[in-house]
């Protein structure tokens, strides 16, 4: 297997996911399968291939610096679990 339990636990922490021990086992197995599958690509010889920054060959897509309407505050806040009708409310952010 290409991934260890430690890899999965670290990624879970970074993604703010709390996994039960049995879930870590499942995830290690499943994520490893995905990584192994993608690993197939490394069989290709790419010595003479230039790296690409993007899969499609389109560049320089821009928009003009002209304001358009934003969402109303009611709309913007409508999906949030907690608000005070002005701000999103989240558990206290410390140390900043």
């Amino acid at each position, binding site marked *: 297997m290409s991934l260890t339990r430690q890899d999965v636990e670290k990624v879970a922490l970074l993604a703010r996911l709390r996994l039960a021990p049995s879930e870590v086992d499942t995830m290690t197995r499943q994520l490893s399968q995905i990584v192994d599958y993608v690993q197939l690509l490394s069989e290709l010889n790419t010595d003479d291939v230039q790296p690409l920054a993007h899969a499609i060959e389109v560049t320089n897509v821009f928009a003009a610096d002209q304001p358009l309407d934003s969402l*109303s505050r009611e709309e913007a806040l409508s999906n949030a679990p907690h608000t005070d009708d002005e701000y*999103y409310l989240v558990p206290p952010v410390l140390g900043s």
Partner: protein
Amino acid sequence: MKQPPEPDHLPYKIVIGLEVHVQLATRTKLFCRCNTQFGAPPNTQTCPVCIGLPGALPVMNDEAFRLSLQTALALNCQIPPSTKWDRKQYYYPDLPKGYQISQYDLPLSHDGFLEIHDSQQRFESKRVRIRRAHLEEDAGKSIHDERSGTADSRIDLNRTGTPLLEIVSEPDMSSALEARTFLDELKLVLVYQGVSDCNMQEGSLRVDANINLHIRDRETWIPTPIVEVKNMNSFRAVERALEFEADRQFDVWQETGQRLGDAPKQTRGWDDQAEVTRPQRGKEESSDYRYFPDPDLVPVNVSPQQLDQIRRQLGPIPAVLREQLQTQWGLGAYDADVLVNQGPRLVQYFTQLAEACGDAKEASNWVQQDVMRRLKEQQTEIDAFPVSAATLAELIRMKQAGQLDRSRAREVFQHMCDHLQSPQQAMTALGIQQVDTAELSALCRSLLDKNPAIVADVKAGKQQAIGSLVGQAKKQNPNVNPAQVKEICLQLIAEMS
């Protein structure tokens, strides 16, 4: 100000690199068309793109990209032919997408420099290298009410997605004063280019500093662990935080002997009230940001033609302007410094004034002594100054023609500012009449007749005796010009013999 000790006598060198985030002066955000106006009611300038709703697609603001290139060129950077954007992933409540769109391995510019110098020569002029300048989006604002302790934090996403240029210097500064000077000069460059308002109070310009020491060890230097200092809300705070931090790090070195690599990089926050830095909890290690190319954004290619065009439209560079004021207008280094530090519009006022009155030194004196004092007193900017350069030039020419002496000209200037009047109107209002030459000659002649002793003194070579005649002339007619009185009297005496 604390005088930095001679580097040779210090047991260590200070090594400082700076990271500056500048909000670019666009009307809309980097990837959506929400307004960037500061001070709007919370959460009224957001849309599906900047609050990260599923399916929304970012599109690059062309003006933000142009301003970035302009700044990079003003900072002497190399611009590669192609650049791209990447996702920097971390979780924080003011970052709704769970990642920041930034630039990782192909920034839009790299390897520039900025020259710094100190007019008081407290350090030697040097070139601070710019490692890179890249374009990224800003996060929102978290507001935590300290008093309520455990209460929720409030999040305002108006700022989310505002274009930021991150400018990273090499660790080329070796004192807090050099760092401060770099920031002053960088801000000046940005203001001259008009790419940002650089308002620190409103968060348009933010500074983080990396600092460590190189401890002298006979012929070599031992680097200590690097500390990143944050939370500095003014350039003065940066200077003080770095002074504090250098002293603190030397104490830690003496206590622990820790070298670079012995301890992980630490993040500390500056407490402006207590005047100390304190450890901060780091978000995550940089290797955990898991950068990868943003699939929503295509790369941007920059053509040489485009760069040429921006180069042609580049605003004045402060260092170049200082040089010009000295070579083209004959000002001293100090005067050139004072004028350039006031910003592009004051320099423009000066050059218009110098041209119109034909005497750059005189124009420089008026701008520095009278115009700038007035601006400071009234707390206004030169744009709102009531006396145009052309009108002030008129006054200066009257002084040069001997119609007014310096102190009367100043009174007239005050009156012109207070009442928005021309020099003529102000003189009339102040009861200053121009004394015509015939009248002046008559006055001088009568004074000479009444003061034969003084005439004799002058004839005997004591020219300063004439001063008493000037005083008497002023008493009789306050409008006379002392220099003119002196000149006419001397001439009349010369004619007598």
